[in-house]
Structures are given as structure tokens and as C-alpha cells.
């Protein structure tokens, strides 16, 4: 009865682990089946025994670099998946039918880096999900990727604001705010206009959903007098700052971590339900 073993035995398989391993009939079947079964059992053991890892800033940066350099992912690929996770998490926390204001307006504030890019992708998907996002994007990087993402939004009839509305206007017009200002690379002082933007966000009463890190927070230690978002969408893995998160919803998104990378950093990621791109951590 020929099966996968036979295919392995005939030496048809070549994996990235090296062809030389697969020249022996008996050995390859065992090794090959180990490639898959090991990862699954490992994950089951991990989630039972350990909790998800919270990353430090340097670790987060290393993981990011590895994804792009060793795993050959492109920024636009991962950004698309990250932004989709954000939009999906937001839809779960603030479903269309639950919104108090009509039309279903949402304010998405995008910062000057990759976190802002995630926000642009998120805005586009929110539009496709039936929300009415408006984007505030005061400092735009010159990289082509961000210009393209901006065009994609503009062509979806997503309006771009010219300035940050006052807190009371935000409360009146928008159902919630997506904070995609600063991410895990944030360090040091907040430059304008973001200082002013963050102080407005501290005054609003509609919920804030932060992408990856509540903006203005220290990536590891949090920020007791910073913004206090209602939702946090941690991407790839939560960062240490998330220990200080006190909001209602903590989602994990960015379902693209290769098993080998997860094992290397012992991320102990939970098992996402089905094909969902978000996992609710709390």
C-alpha cells in the first residue's frame, strides 16, 4: 500500500532541511512526518504549560527583521495581513449593528511609520466591511509603499482630514477611533503634531482601539498618564507594555508567524480559531 512513506522513500522529497537526510527509505518517512507532527504537538504542549510571551522592544525588532530578511516576507504582504487583523478585531469589538451613531463613522489616525501603514490598510478593510472611515495622516513618509496605500484609500472614497478635530467634535461625529500612530519602534519624545493629537485622544469619551502599542506608551513599561485605549490589537505577539493594558478588548493579530520563528523565540502563540486572523486574549 503506497502512501506518503513511499513518496518519501523514493527520494522524491527535498526539503529546506537538506536533501541528504532523505536518501534512506525508512528514515525519511519518520523524519518527514516529524516535520509536521512535531509542530502541532509542540504547540499543544506550549499552550497548556505556558502562557503567551510578551516581547521586549529589541526582541520585537529582531523578529521583525528576521521576517523580512530571513523569511523573505515583503512589508506590503505583512502589512496587508496586519491591517486586515486590525479591521477584523475592531469589527468584533464594535460591530456595525452596535454603533450608536449613524452613519458608521470611524476616525483612523495614522502615524509616520509602519504603524501608520497598518492603519491605512485597516481603514481600507473597514470600508469594505461597511464602516465609514476617515483618515488623519499628518506626516507621510516618502516611501512608495505609503503613497500607494494612501492612493488605495483615496480611491475607495475614504476622506483624509486636514487637521485633528477637537475632542468634542470627535465624540459627536465618530463612533470610535483607531490609533495607528506609534508602534513597537517608538522611543523617546513625541513630536508634533502627535503630542497635540494624543492630548485630544485623552479627552474623548468614544473608545480608542490601538494598533500594536497604545501610542505614546513606552513599549515595555507602559504609560500611566498616557492614552487609555479600550482595545489593543497586538500584532505578531504582544509587547511588554500590554501588561499595563486595562481596556476591555485585547486581540492578537498578524497570523503569519512561521512555526520555526515561533519556536526560536518561544512565543507560545495560542491556536487561532479556524481561519480567523484574530485571537481574543481577554
Amino acid at each position, binding site marked *: *500500500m*503506497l*502512501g*506518503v512513506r*513511499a*513518496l518519501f522513500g523514493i*527520494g*522524491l*522529497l*527535498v*526539503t*529546506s*532541511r537538506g536533501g541528504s537526510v532523505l536518501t534512506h527509505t525508512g528514515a525519511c518517512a519518520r523524519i*518527514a*512526518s516529524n*516535520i*509536521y507532527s512535531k*509542530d*502541532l504537538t509542540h504547540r499543544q504542549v506550549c499552550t497548556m504549560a505556558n502562557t503567551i510571551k510578551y516581547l521586549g522592544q529589541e526582541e520585537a525588532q529582531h523578529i521583525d527583521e528576521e521576517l523580512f530578511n*530571513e*523569511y*523573505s*516576507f*515583503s512589508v*506590503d*504582504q505583512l502589512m*496587508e*495581513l496586519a491591517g486586515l487583523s486590525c*479591521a*477584523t478585531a475592531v*469589527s468584533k469589538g464594535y460591530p456595525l449593528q452596535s454603533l450608536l451613531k449613524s452613519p458608521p463613522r470611524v476616525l483612523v489616525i495614522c502615524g509616520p511609520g509602519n504603524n501608520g501603514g497598518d492603519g491605512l490598510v485597516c481603514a*481600507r478593510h473597514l470600508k*469594505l*466591511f461597511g464602516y465609514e472611515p476617515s483618515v488623519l495622516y499628518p506626516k507621510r513618509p516618502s516611501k512608495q*509603499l505609503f*503613497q*500607494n*496605500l494612501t*492612493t*488605495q484609500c483615496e*480611491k*475607495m*472614497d475614504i476622506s483624509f482630514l486636514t487637521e485633528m478635530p477637537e475632542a468634542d467634535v470627535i465624540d459627536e461625529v465618530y463612533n470610535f477611533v483607531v490609533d495607528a500612530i506609534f508602534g513597537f519602534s517608538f522611543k523617546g519624545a513625541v513630536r508634533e503634531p502627535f503630542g497635540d493629537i494624543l492630548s485630544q485622544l485623552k479627552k474623548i469619551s468614544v473608545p480608542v482601539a490601538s494598533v500594536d502599542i497604545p501610542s505614546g506608551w513606552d513599549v515595555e513599561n507602559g504609560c500611566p498618564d498616557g492614552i487609555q485605549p479600550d482595545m489593543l490589537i497586538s500584532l505578531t505577539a504582544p509587547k511588554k507594555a500590554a501588561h499595563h493594558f486595562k481596556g476591555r478588548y485585547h486581540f492578537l493579530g498578524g*497570523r*503569519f508567524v*512561521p*512555526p*520555526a520563528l515561533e519556536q526560536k523565540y518561544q512565543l507560545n502563540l495560542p491556536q487561532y480559531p*479556524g*481561519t480567523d486572523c484574530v485571537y481574543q486574549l481577554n
Partner: protein
Amino acid sequence: MNHSSNEKEPETIEPLRYLSKSEVATVETELLRDYRFGQQQLIEIWGHACAIAITKAFPLSSLSKKQPTLLVVCGPEQNGSIGLVCARHLRMFEYEPTIFYPKRSPQSLHQDFTVQCEKMDIPFLSYLPTEVQLLNDAYNLVIDAILGPETDHKEVKEPYAGMLVTLKQVKIPIVSVDVPSGWDVDEPAKDGINPEVLISLTAPKKCATGFSGKHFLAGRFLPYDIQKKYELNLPEFPGTECVIEL
């Protein structure tokens, strides 16, 4: 006055449009040139949605073999790259894909997708056995990501012509990505491969009219302007889903 038992009540007033080969090319050009989507971005969107459609057609629990194995056969162009991304997401969804990718695209854009799969420890076959029983025994299904709407169906070169001959004989289900490989985009092939499931990307193609198997529409990203311009009349995706069964 004749009502065949297969006739469905139309859910929308306007019927879903099935695109011709030239329309597909025009839409894609517009997406890249005017809407500034990136090619890797689109391939990621399509591959991800494709994987989700496959989990709907063949949930893990429904697979008959002990391991949830599947074979993803990838051609040299965009359709093949979509297959690679699809394989990667299926791996994330706990399936066990194996890839057969005989002629790799020289473009670095497509090479990245290969590395991403290799680094997910997805095995790559070095050749496709012509003995069909091997495939029937080893895999639960075959994902056909060989040729897409960009290919000229009249000029199917080796090794693809041979591969299609093999695929026509497998007993396990075939899932075709976007267009069944070897089919004319505008017309169903009379003696081509016969997939059980078709996953149309973005919008269905003319050759899918009257497709008798399971038909999914995958990929939820089209700007409303394009949808209106080409009168696509896409159905409403439920909730936040990016796949809908037609």
C-alpha cells in the same frame, strides 16, 4: 414556463458578471496602475482568500486520510505564486501541504514566495509521479495553481501538458485556482481537467458559467468604483468574510 430543478432564484436584481480574458487583464492593469495596489499585495490577498475557500470546501475534519495532506501544483506565473501563498496559509491553518513547483519564475517577486514556503518547512516535490495511484494514496486533494487567465490555453508547453494529463486521471478532488488549468478563459473546456471545486478570484470568468462543481468567489478588496465600472454585481460578503459560495 419550464423550471429546471437546478434553477436558483436570483438573490440580487442584477446578475453577477463573468469576465472575459481581456476584461480580466484590463481590471488588473487598472488595479496596479490607477489604484496603486502592489503585485505582491494582490497575490497575498488572493492566496489567503483561496486558502480560506479551501477550508470551507474541505474542512480538516472532512478529510479521509490520516494526515491532512494536500498537493499544491504551481505553475510558473502569477497563478503559481498565488498557489504558493495559498499553501503557506493552509499550513498556518494546520493542513499539511506539499508543493510541486517545477519551473520557478525568475522574478524576485515570485522567488520570495518560494522562500517563504520553504521556511515554513513545506516540502517541495522534485518531480510529479505519473503513477496516479501514488497521488491518490498520498494526498486528500490537489490544488491546481498551474495556469491562470494570463496564459494562452492553446500553447500549453511541457511540463504542464504532461502534468495536466496526470491530473485528469487522479481520483482525488481537484481544486482549481481562478481558472481550471488548460481551459480557455472564455469557454469551458470539453476535455480539460475536471475540478470538483473552482475558486474564482475577484470575479468569475466566462468559462465558469454553468460550472457544475462547488464554486467560490474569493478575495474581498475590489474598490467600489471598479465594481461599478465593470458592472460586476458582486454578491455581498457576509460579515468580515472574504469568501462566498456562489
